[in-house]
């Protein structure tokens, strides 16, 4: 692999940020980051999405929590620490949470009950959860269809996901009840689709 093809810590983090910014400003809008995912080293022990998000958001000023049921989860944790300078911490203390494989319901509950949501005086002291899902779609064709409303959305917007437990949404709305406190979500899949659900987004589940 030549240098030009590997994820560049200046130019590619900026490109990812611009996509993420667009997705955060327009909740549910899917941005395509597949070109950036292809630049992640093959030896990377976490998902390519987690890798590029960690490189873009983390440094020694913030902490992260990494969850994965893969056997090399510890390697991934250390690789993120080593490449970003950020430190791994418990889920209730972390600024950024990377959920790389779908946890059991109990695990989702324990993460969501304790995740930081900031305070009324400092609502920014809240966590951002980056959730690796199997697939995202801008139509209602996947297992978990959502109708989104709120700032950044002109009327309503449809997003659907495979490999995302609806428990995330239930607990999200519980923890985000008292705006401006709450936590923000970033969703991504292995095909390079990325979307965001900031705390202001009201989500209605749509079952057919």
């Amino acid at each position, binding site marked *: 692999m030549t240098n030009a093809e590997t994820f560049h*810590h*200046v*130019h590619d*983090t*900026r*490109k990812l*940020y*611009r996509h*993420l*910014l*667009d997705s*955060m*400003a*327009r909740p549910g809008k899917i941005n395509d980051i597949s070109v950036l995912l292809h630049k992640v080293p093959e030896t990377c022990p976490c998902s390519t999405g987690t890798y590029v998000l960690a490189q*873009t*958001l*983390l*440094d020694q*000023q*913030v902490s992260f929590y990494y969850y994965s049921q893969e056997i090399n989860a510890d390697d991934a944790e250390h690789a993120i620490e080593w490449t970003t300078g950020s430190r791994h911490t418990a889920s209730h203390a972390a600024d950024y949470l990377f959920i790389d494989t779908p946890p059991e319901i109990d695990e989702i509950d324990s993460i969501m009950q304790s995740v930081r949501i900031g*305070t*009324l*005086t400092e*609502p*920014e002291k*809240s966590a*951002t959860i980056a959730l690796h899902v199997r697939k995202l779609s801008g139509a209602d064709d996947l297992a978990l269809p959502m109708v989104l409303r709120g*700032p*950044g*959305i*002109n009327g309503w917007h449809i997003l659907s996901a495979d490999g995302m437990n609806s428990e995330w949404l239930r607990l999200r709305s519980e923890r985000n009840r008292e*705006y*401006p406190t709450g936590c*923000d979500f970033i969703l991504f899949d292995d095909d390079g689709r990325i979307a965001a659900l*900031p*705390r*202001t987004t009201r989500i209605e589940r749509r079952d057919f």
Partner: protein
Amino acid sequence: MQAHLKQTYNYAFLDEGSKKEIRRTTLKAIAIPGYQVPFASREMPIGRGWGTGGLQLTLSLIGDQDCLKVIDQGNDDSVNAVSIKKLVQSCTKAEVTTDSERATIIQTRHRIPEVPIRSDQILVFQVPLPEPLRMVEAKERKTKQLHAEMDYSGIWLRLYEDIVKWGKISIGADYPALAHKRYIFAPSPIPRYDLPKLNHADGLFLFGAGREKKIYAIPPYTEIEPLAFDDYPFEVEHFEGCSCRLCGSSDTFLDELFDEKTGQKFYQCSDTGNCRKRQEKRHTP
């Protein structure tokens, strides 16, 4: 060797740690429309009060594919706008333009361009005083608390006193507004004429206050309500019967100017880039 980039500068001037922090802060700001998120503002190679907050936002965003427009009170050619463009060009290969429709990023002081900001554009505001409650409360700790409790009675009382005293709300530029029915924010010293452009817009608006170390944002399609009373509604500046001396426009924001020799009053578009385009259109049949 060709000196296409000055090696003394980082790409886009800021070190990567600074950019990361500004980016994290900006993402938070978008998630809480109108709330001022603190950040560790850096020293910049331009004078304080010349838009260091806006500049840091621009530098955290910009890449070689971008096209940048910088305006100062609508004017692309002011000393401040030119020096910001020079700095950006010394440390990136981004293009610069005066055409707001070609720009991907527009950094502005005191105006919003006449042509609406599109969904693929970002408008970055230079903010001198980000705290709208400062006029009623001097202490930062207290204004933070007032925002937390959504206790806005002080600023409402101030507006009411204005009406009692002057028969109208006397605030011209930097007119306070409520974002997403939650936070009162300062739109920076834009004229009232520009404030409705923030409401339910297609584009993204980012605000940077360098000296006060705050970043805030108004995402697209967000409700922005200027503070007003039912019987004293919000009103924008009017220019009835006036038109631009250069392009003839009567539906743009006009600056009132005086001819130095004759002392005669005349009007000219404040958005010089747009005015130039209108003049060209007028001259091509």
